[in-house]
């Protein structure tokens, strides 16, 4: 039967590889340099590195959706915003 029913494409495969790479990087980072106790950030909630990755990815998804709904389907703009968002989340949240 194979995996043809899953209708894989290179861009979607790259997306999942990116998510998997994020998880592996975070695991290796945690093993090498433990993050310690959760941190109290600007949102007033305690977050670990894993929480921050989740917030970054979820926030990025909404950044892309908002861009596609309000601006255009050219996605370099939201990609730049999402990268800045991810940096700010890991730095301050």
């Amino acid at each position, binding site marked *: 039967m194979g995996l043809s029913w*899953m209708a894989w*494409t290179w861009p*979607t495969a790259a997306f999942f590889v990116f998510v998997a790479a994020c998880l592996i990087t975070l695991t290796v980072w945690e093993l090498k340099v433990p993050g310690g106790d959760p941190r109290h950030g600007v949102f007033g909630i305690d977050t670990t590195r894993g929480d921050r990755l*989740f917030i970054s990815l979820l926030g990025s998804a909404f950044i892309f959706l908002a861009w596609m709904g309000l601006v255009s*389907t050219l996605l370099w703009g939201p990609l730049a915003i999402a990268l800045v968002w991810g940096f700010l989340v890991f730095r301050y949240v």
Partner: protein
Amino acid sequence: MNKTENQKAWLFVLPVVALVAFNAVIPLMTVVNYSVQETFGDNTFFWSGVLWFEQVLHSERFHASLGRQLLFTGTILVIEIPLGVAIALTMPRKGVWLSVCLVLMALPLLIPWNVVGAMWNIFALPDIGLMGWTLNKIGFDFNFTRQPGDAWFTLIIMDVWHWTSLVVLLAYAGLSSIPDAYYQAAKIDGAGRWAIFRHIQLPKMKRVLTIALLLRFMDSFMIYTEPFVLTGGGPGNSTTLLSIDLVKIALGQFDLGPAAAMSLIYFLIILLLSWIFYTVMMRNEEQ
């Protein structure tokens, strides 16, 4: 002292990982793949990029479904939470009537969702249903199969009937945990009924009410079976909530690309709400 590490516990997690992979992750990956392609069947796909996302985000139909979904969820929350608290406050604290009340409250929760829809469908029919027939007899022009307002009325009271019990049981659990000493102190201070509710009962119910609010929010946001059985989304599209619309697009029209894009947007909204739910609960636990 040497730290003992045992990583064998990870092996016990493997069955769950495999199960989640097969019933959630792999289907979700497929939906992501479908969302950027067009298909005409025969397992043949054509790349379409983010076209379906753009189409769904600009679709008046999607906006209307989302609006109806928010209206439905907002309405049932405004009714069910205060009503549930009010019923919990009037329930007896002990004795045989407490058991009777608890069983009565639990009954609607035990009925399968499709049965609830079928029950209310028959109950509200204007010619043979007890509610529909009675409303028409006393002068209302009630017909939920023809008039959108009546369909909404039936949908809302069906959900209130089905799920207020959950709020009642949670609120009652919160009230039961208040020690008698609080009430005795309030009595000595001469506090009235409202003051007791405002300063003792409500703060003590805060945690369970947060859970009730968020559970009902998420559950009503994903509702499908009851409105589908009751009205099928009609009359017209007047009670077509998000999940019903999604099924119409995916299975009715077989537009897998747009349906997949809509599923992902819907999923992201639910994921955001679930995260808020989890965060609020954890904050309450810490406090």
